[in-house]
């Protein structure tokens, strides 16, 4: 009889300190040794991890009021603008935002030394941050200017809210052109001089639960060194893509929107990044526990790098101009070996996602669960899976001339 466990049973074992928890790397060896049926009986939880650049990340902050009060029209943290088109002293600092004074790519390739991700890291490191804000003044909010120094401990609320994290799979980027290019996948040398990839592969959360059976809205996770939750499916969530026989998507597919209290996170797990010629972003550390409810879940979590494939994509023309090119697939075992074969030629590989850090996250989360500090949650609702009918859209090209928008207040 196949083993079946409920969330409640697993949590009871966690509370008693008896849960058997292994990482998504360790489970592979255990299955090879004991077989699926026996391993599924023994193992209660498999922990995953990923630590890589995730641009669609940021934090909501409530600064508290100045005296007199201010309705902030624009806000800057260390010169990096935060979006303030919400309530008076609320703002959202995005990981990819640049200072107004950044030279960008005016001298190509730009350096992008500091951005929103660096601000979030500095806040977490309890560094002093310059807060500047301007307002237009109202009867209820008379102040027009704030220029001060704050730390994370000075603000009322700060929570991370990342609209798209933990991409289930990603492209392997190459450059078919004859000049080096500077992309969000790093520097791509000309004439397929390297192949860049960005996934923790067999350790990556959504690759271990390919149909999102246990990862859904409300799932408690490791986020940025603290505890967070899955808020929703992420933007560009596109689960109905081509999949291998093991259910693993053969390219980017599912994504997650994540949320968590910034104040209990750790600067080691939210790190500002600078991609030359591209921009600034942030590395986000995420770990998701997967309950082994039955043998099927164990099959999913035992997935190996050699069984996970991603598409090779040209970033010289194919990606930027959406030109369909079939350049084949490559698996993560080959990518992690340091060399792949493309068109009969050996190509060195360039990782963007940190595998050692992903492993450390999976191990940290395993420790939390083993010590009874972290219980599992059943999703409140599921996110769309492979049977969804989601169409991946582009911006429509329409002529706005003559269209009456917003009662005629058209922007010219």
């Amino acid at each position: 009889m196949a083993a079946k466990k409920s969330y409640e049973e697993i949590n009871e074992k966690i509370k008693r300190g008896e849960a058997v928890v292994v990482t998504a790397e360790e489970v592979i060896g255990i299955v090879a040794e004991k077989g699926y049926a026996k391993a599924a009986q023994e193992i209660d939880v498999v922990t995953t991890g990923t630590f890589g650049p995730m641009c669609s990340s940021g934090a909501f902050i409530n600064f508290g009021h100045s005296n007199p009060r201010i309705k902030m029209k624009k806000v800057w943290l260390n010169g990096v603008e935060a979006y303030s088109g919400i309530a008076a002293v609320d703002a959202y600092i995005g990981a990819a935002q640049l200072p107004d004074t950044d030279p960008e790519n005016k001298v190509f390739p730009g350096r992008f030394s500091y951005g929103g991700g660096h601000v979030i890291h500095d806040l977490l490191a309890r560094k002093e941050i310059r807060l500047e804000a301007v307002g237009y003044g109202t009867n209820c909010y008379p102040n027009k200017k704030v220029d001060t120094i704050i730390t994370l401990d000075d603000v009322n609320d700060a929570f991370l809210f990342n609209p798209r994290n933990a991409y289930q799979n990603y492209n392997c980027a190459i450059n078919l052109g004859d000049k080096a290019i500077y992309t969000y996948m790093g520097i791509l040398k000309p004439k397929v001089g390297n192949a860049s990839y960005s996934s923790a592969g067999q350790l990556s959360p959504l690759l271990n639960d390919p149909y999102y059976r246990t990862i859904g809205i409300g799932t408690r996770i490791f986020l940025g060194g603290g505890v967070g939750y899955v808020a929703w499916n992420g933007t560009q969530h596109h689960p109905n893509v081509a999949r291998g026989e093991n259910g693993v998507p053969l390219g980017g597919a599912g994504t997650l929107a994540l949320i968590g209290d910034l104040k209990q996170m750790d600067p080691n797990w939210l790190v500002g990044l600078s991609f030359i010629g591209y921009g600034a972003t942030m590395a986000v550390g995420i770990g998701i526990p997967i309950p082994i409810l039955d043998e099927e879940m164990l099959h999913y979590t035992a997935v190996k790098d050699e069984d996970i494939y991603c598409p090779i994509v040209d970033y010289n023309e194919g990606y930027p101009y959406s030109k369909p090119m079939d350049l084949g697939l490559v698996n993560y075992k080959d990518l992690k070996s340091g060399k792949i074969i493309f068109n009969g030629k050996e190509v060195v590989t360039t990782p963007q996602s940190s595998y050692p850090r992903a492993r450390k996250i999976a191990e940290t989360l395993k420790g939390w669960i083993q010590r009874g500090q972290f219980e599992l949650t059943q999703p409140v609702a599921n996110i769309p899976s492979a049977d969804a009918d989601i169409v991946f859209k582009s911006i429509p090209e329409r002529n706005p001339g003559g269209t009456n928008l917003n009662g005629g207040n058209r922007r010219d």
Partner: protein
Amino acid sequence: MKNKLVCYFSAAQSEQPIIYRLVKNYDLSINIIKADINPQKEGFLVLELEGEKNSYDEGVAFIKSLGVVVEPLSETVVWQPEVCIQCGACASFCPTEALNIDRDSMEVSFDNAKCVVCGMCLDCCPTRAIQLHFEIKEAV
């Protein structure tokens, strides 16, 4: 003998065909690893200099006689393990495997002895964990 040197030069010195003379008069084999010259024509050269010991010593003495400051190249690329997030992006750009990934642990390490200070790693490191520590002099 073979050594890596940093040569700091002023505007007046940069007008002179120093490399040509090192090759022609001292029979030295020269590999220019890095060169940087500012709009005021001051700058530095990182050279790998190879030749017979006598020629090498005379060649270096010649450069110094022109007023160029010559220093051995050592500990000039600094890898900060506490800033590094172990992504490994640098290793595929390092021509000498000074920055290397252990394929079992996927961890990055840096071997200063193998580094030729080409500077490729500086651009591709997203956390800027790798820095070039030249003690650039204002006026030589």
